[in-house]
């Protein structure tokens, strides 16, 4: 009897440890993921101190803005990447028969909710703001959170659009990974280094530039030699995020209709 009880305790303890260890490991990964990007940036800028008038400190601020939006998305909207798996395993139908919006249900599936990445992003942004010499006035305090949320919505739009694609093509894991990976790479640098066509795409088609570049040019008071837009356009990020999310939501609805129609 006692032996059995001890076995149960041992298993519970090991399970707890494993979840704990698992959580720590993923937290370490988040740190490594961002730290390697920043380290690469640092080493590069040490060798080449200026990039289209941007120095390392300003690039760090640029990265931190992107990181903020990205991590807010990961904290609240991450579940949407599970949709392809739900569809594949036939579990998605459960959400459709209930009276609540399917997307809302997907997002609220019980899961680990400690926002470690978010805290990391907040710390990075604070440090970057200080180092880049950005003034923290009322405008900063009001707009930066809004911009971060706008950034999260832009990311969410991407995740949602790709999740919708899974209603047609079952396997989208690589696609999603590639898109996010490209997003991280292309937003790392001021978009003025790209050709005009690409700048237009990044500003108006896949609005990654609104996640960090335009807000950064505003707060760092830099000119944008590429598209010659008014610097204040950086403050429009929340609206751009909403608009982009709106479009993605339409695609999502079309996908759901299609899924229901084909009776998979």
């Amino acid at each position, binding site marked *: 009897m006692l032996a059995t009880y001890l076995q149960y305790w041992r298993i519970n303890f090991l399970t707890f440890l*494993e979840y704990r*260890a*698992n959580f720590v*490991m*993923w937290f*370490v*990964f988040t740190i*490594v*993921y961002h730290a*390697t990007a920043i*380290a*690469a940036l640092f*080493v*590069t800028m*040490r*060798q*080449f*101190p*200026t*990039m*289209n008038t941007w120095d390392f400190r300003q690039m760090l601020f640029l990265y931190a803005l992107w990181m903020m939006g990205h991590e807010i998305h990961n904290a609240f909207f991450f579940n949407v990447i599970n949709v392809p798996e739900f569809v594949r395993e036939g579990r998605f139908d459960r959400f459709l028969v209930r009276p609540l919006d399917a997307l809302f249900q997907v997002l609220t599936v019980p899961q680990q909710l400690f926002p470690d990445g978010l805290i990391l992003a907040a710390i990075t942004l604070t440090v970057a703001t200080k180092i880049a010499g950005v003034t923290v006035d009322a405008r900063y305090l009001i707009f930066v959170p809004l911009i971060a949320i706008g950034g999260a919505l832009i990311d969410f739009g991407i995740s949602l659009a790709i999740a919708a694609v899974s209603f047609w*093509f079952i*396997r*989208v894991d*690589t*696609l999603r990974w*590639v898109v996010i*990976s*490209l997003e991280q*790479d*292309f937003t790392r*640098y001021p978009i003025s*280094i*790209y*050709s005009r066509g*690409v700048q237009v795409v990044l500003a108006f088609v896949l609005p990654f530039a609104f996640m960090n570049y335009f807000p950064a040019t505003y707060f760092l008071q830099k000119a944008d030699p590429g598209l010659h837009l008014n610097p204040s356009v950086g403050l429009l990020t929340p609206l751009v995020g909403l608009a982009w999310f709106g479009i993605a939501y339409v695609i999502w609805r079309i996908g759901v209709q299609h899924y229901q129609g084909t009776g998979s």
Partner: protein
Amino acid sequence: MLSAVPYVEFAKKAFAREATYRMEVFTEVASLVLRVYLLRCLWTALYAQNAAPLNLPLHSMITYATIALLMSLILEVDGTRLIREKIRDGSIATDLMKPISVPLYFFSDGFGNTVLHAVLVIPSLLFALLLVHIDIPPPTTLAIFALSFAIGYFVNFFLNFVMNSIAFWTLETFAVQLIVRWVSDLLSGQIIPLTFVPGIFGRIVFALPFAAIYSTPLLIYVGIIPPSQWMNALIAQVLWLAGFGAISYVVWRAASRHVVVQGG
């Protein structure tokens, strides 16, 4: 003794299996092309506004970065992913009972996967050549580069093997693997040439095994490692190969005695 026939079949099966993922194949090539575009913009801008490093003019840097990307097509394939998956679903236990060499099975599976990606290098290279100019070194250099790349491939294989075999003990290793992958990408010279890393850190990174995977072959290719140094560079790689090969052997022996099947 050991017949090669079953292992050739495993490799062929892996090739066919991976080739059915058309979407993934397309996204990998497309993503590579986009990255080549990015690196061209990046390095062109940096070299235009800063002093060039002594032994690495712009065309060499672009060559370095492009070849690094093409190499990653082949090296980033996780040849030993199968191990982790089979431990997860328990089929490793039955595999160990079959009259085949399980490590060799994993190697041929990974190799088949790798050959598919090697084939992808061709269209990727063609697309890349549309965007950038790649230096072609003299034939002997090219030959030594190929040799160095092959050795690096095996170092990478054994590194992955050890990482994946840890799954025998801790079961949840995906995060750890990603951490190692990210850190090794940075420290291997795939993202930035290790020659940019300053001072003591520079000496450290060159002493690590990761440099044997990307940096050594790449530096041979662009001529930073001159013919007089080839022998030393190759020997260093081979030492890492032997080292990780030995560790892999030890880990495998310990692991196959410790099969813990993760129940459903």
